[in-house]
């Protein structure tokens, strides 16, 4: 790498159906924010700047799930405009908490919630970006971890592979010297089937893992569910445990459906 840097890569931060929390993680990376802002050319980031340039972009960071006809088209346009497309957060990678509607009749929700339902046009399902276009990298979490985001940006700039593990939360949890809440307290915990990245935040505060980072690389949800039952969890509770922020990730979806009361 020469000290003369190449042209700064242009970056777009684009939102679909989401709460904006993942984009905020970038602004929340206070220690690294200036360095990041100096190393990239922010072309489109309505949440943070007036930059609203059109594509093409070197990197698109995509937040949110696809829930409308317009968004289903918009994501294709964005893909065509982006050299590298990275999804950030549970919504963009698995459909998010709003994917809970996928098990219900969305038209009924619309009728109940909105005074003038005829103005609302929405898809029946909330789906991840990867169901619509090819995705180059998925950053997990609800919300994402700012250190992982900075690591991803730094790795992309250096042309190296990011250090983003796909193994279980348990490995982080044990490295951090947390006492296992499942074994020592009998607290239901999704850590063994959930991807690391959060720093085992909940177990550090004596809570079980809620699965915010979605399924780990080889999630054995069946075996964990059997153990949750041994620990006294009902079918409904087991189903609900898997039906969280990553409910539509197929492994969690399957596990939740297996324990759903019919």
């Amino acid at each position, binding site marked *: *790498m020469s*000290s003369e*840097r190449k042209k700064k890569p242009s970056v777009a931060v684009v939102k679909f159906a989401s709460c904006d929390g993942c984009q905020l993680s970038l602004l929340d990376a206070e220690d*690294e924010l200036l*360095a*990041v802002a*100096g*190393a990239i050319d922010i072309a489109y980031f309505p949440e943070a700047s007036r930059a609203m340039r059109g594509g093409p972009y070197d990197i698109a960071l995509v937040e949110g799930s696809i829930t409308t006809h317009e968004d289903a088209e918009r994501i294709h346009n964005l893909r065509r405009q982006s050299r590298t497309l990275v999804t950030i957060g549970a919504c963009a990678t698995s459909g998010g908490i709003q994917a809970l509607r996928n098990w219900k009749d969305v038209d009924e929700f619309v009728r109940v919630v909105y005074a003038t339902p005829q103005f609302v046009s929405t898809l029946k399902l909330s789906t991840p970006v990867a169901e619509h276009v090819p995705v180059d990298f998925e950053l997990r979490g609800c919300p994402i971890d700012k250190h992982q985001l*900075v*690591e991803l*940006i*730094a*790795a992309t*700039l*250096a042309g*190296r592979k990011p*250090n983003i*593990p*796909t*193994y*279980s939360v*348990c*490995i982080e949890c*044990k*490295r*951090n*010297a*947390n*006492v*296992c809440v*499942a*074994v*020592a*307290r*009998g607290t239901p*915990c999704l*850590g*063994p*089937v959930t991807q690391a990245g959060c720093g085992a935040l909940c177990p550090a505060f*004596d809570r079980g893992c809620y699965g915010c980072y979605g399924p*780990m*690389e*080889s999630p*054995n949800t*069946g*075996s*964990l569910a*059997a*153990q949750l039952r*041994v620990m006294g969890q009902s079918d409904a509770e087991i189903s609900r445990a898997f039906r969280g922020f990553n409910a539509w990730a197929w492994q969690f979806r399957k596990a939740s459906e297996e324990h759903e009361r019919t």
Partner: protein
Amino acid sequence: MPERKRTRLAAERVADLIQTLAGRGYTVIGPTVRDGAVVYEEIADAQDLPRGWTDRQEPGRYRLEPRADGAWFGYNLGPQSWKRHLFPPQTKLFTAERADGLFRILGPEAERRPRAFIGVRACELAAIAAQDQVLLEGPFRDGLYAARREGVFIVAVSCTLAAPTCFCASLGTGPQAPGELCDIVLTEVVNGADHWFLAEAEGARGAEVLDRLAAEPCTEDDSRRAGAAVYAAAQSQTRRVDCDGLREALEDNFEHDRWDAVARRCLACGNCTMVCPTCFCTTMEDFSDVEGSRAERWRRWDSCFTATFSYIHGGSVRTSVKARYRQWLMHKLATWIDQFGTPGCVGCGRCITWCPVGIDLTEEARAICRDGNDGNTVA
């Protein structure tokens, strides 16, 4: 060879032992209760010890319980081993910085504080010996481990109780703490108000510390009673690994149906390898900052249960959980013997207790060896 000094120590003298070691500049690390378990952390004095606590363990389950007799060491192993202090879970190996058109390498900084470990059990001494063999005695000596390991003052405690998950007796690694590797061996005898330690000094350094503690001479009867308590702990162990022919049996049953059965239960979460006191595998992670002016290399505990562990050009060698469980169990009980001459398992039972679904290594090994098949039978 120095005389083995054998004395009787009043129970309350444990406090003086810690103070004496602290007074000599040792950072004292010992058992203490945190978050519902006994863990090994820096302790200030005897108040920090888990006095009055014991534990109940079974596969996938651990609970602390109070005990009334005031025993200082009346608990079994907790989730952490001394590996955490000798071979930490994350270590920065070096930093590289860009400066004046060049770059320079900084570090690593070796740990050089003198430390004393209190309450090291027999199986844990065996585990430390196993890691010494891997990290110090092989062709590649690990300087960072050596710096942490060197000069550690070890107060071992022989076990006078055993958890249902313990099986050191069958492997010959406990429950009596051997004199090697340690400075003092304590055996706690508690029977109502009759509460004392058999304290044995191993070498001059241990003897010198014991001399400060107003230890009394110990009688034949004291030795006998302490020995009987340890013997009873061995006798009470319900799990075992039969080493005779084990390696050959495992090698002969590489395609046993049981591997498939255990893979259906195994979460591949890696907990067993994290709590194992002999597991030594690590991964290297290289980081560069956003500006490209600073880089770091970190070493972290890794696990043979992850997909990336066996990743080489083109993909992972062990793609199935079956292959990963088999790799781990066979390394512990068979291929470790090929490498190092002894099994890589010391019988501490942590992998049984801290497996979230309670997979029992002793049961798996027995099933694979007892019902040997050629892998072609249908379960």
